[in-house]
């Protein structure tokens, strides 16, 4: 039932409201005299240079792809975990095959050094 999600929507509304209140209260009650220097991003007292958004090494892409894969794997675990007691050993075997095939990929990745940063 969608009404089951009422607590989640309450949480959403509260978190949005609280963050808005925090932003606006500090603006309302605190002094506000902006200068170019004050508005510039703080970089440990150094002159800021370059763009804030930099190119990142391709290694991060590998991490992101691996994260997606394990994420999808968890998604398959969820509905299975709800019922696996009813199916006893058979349910465990079905997930075992699924998990074993994934572990082949994981062990390969580990051996090749896919989990090393350098």
């Amino acid at each position: 039932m969608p009404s089951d999600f009422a607590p989640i929507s309450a949480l959403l509304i509260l978190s949005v409201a609280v963050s808005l209140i925090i932003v606006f209260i500090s603006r309302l009650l605190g002094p506000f005299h902006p200068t170019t220097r004050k508005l510039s991003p703080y970089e440990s007292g150094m002159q800021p240079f370059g763009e804030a958004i930099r190119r990142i090494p391709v290694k991060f892409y590998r991490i992101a792809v691996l994260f997606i894969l394990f994420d999808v794997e968890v998604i398959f675990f969820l509905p299975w975990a709800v019922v696996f007691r009813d199916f006893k050993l058979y349910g465990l075997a079905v997930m075992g095959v699924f998990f074993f095939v994934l572990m082949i990929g994981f062990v390969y990745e580990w051996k090749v050094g896919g989990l090393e940063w350098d």
Partner: protein
Amino acid sequence: MDITIESLVFLIFGALTLGAGVLVVTSRNLFHSGLYLMMSLFGVAGLFVLLAAPLLAGFQVVVYIGAIAILIIVAIMLTPGLTQIKTLFNEQWMVNLAAAVIVFLVLVSVITPLMDDVGVDNWNADFTEDHPKAVAADSMTTLGEQLVDPDYFMLPFEVASVLLMAAMIGAVLLVNPGQAEDESVVPPEGEEV
């Protein structure tokens, strides 16, 4: 038309989805587009909840917002210079607009009895209270049972693991190609070719 809580929530999430979607394609900073895409996907998750499909909503948050949007942002941050482009360079506004209008008209014609009035039969989807049937409340349990049932999705479920394994190996090979390949290009140090 009286406004129920459900229709109000639908309006909020519909506006969130569409508004963030418009910002995705009009934002001048590609990085911001990626963030707006997350917002739009979140609106879709809310719509899934309204459609009594909480499982899909959860998957939407975990997989799409949690993983795929992150992958898209990482891919944006890999590209040189794309984050610095300050002008829109889409020159296919007209084609996109035409496609959007056509899809919208088809949807309207399916949902409303418009085509029946013109005389085309079997075009209207004919939605009523009981058709399509409401999603079962224990959809999670049903999905779990059918995932391990050989008559339903057991085989696709196992094949999915092969697909995931292939993607895992592909990701590793893509980023650091195999050592054998490296040695064929660059000879190891201290050796004469």
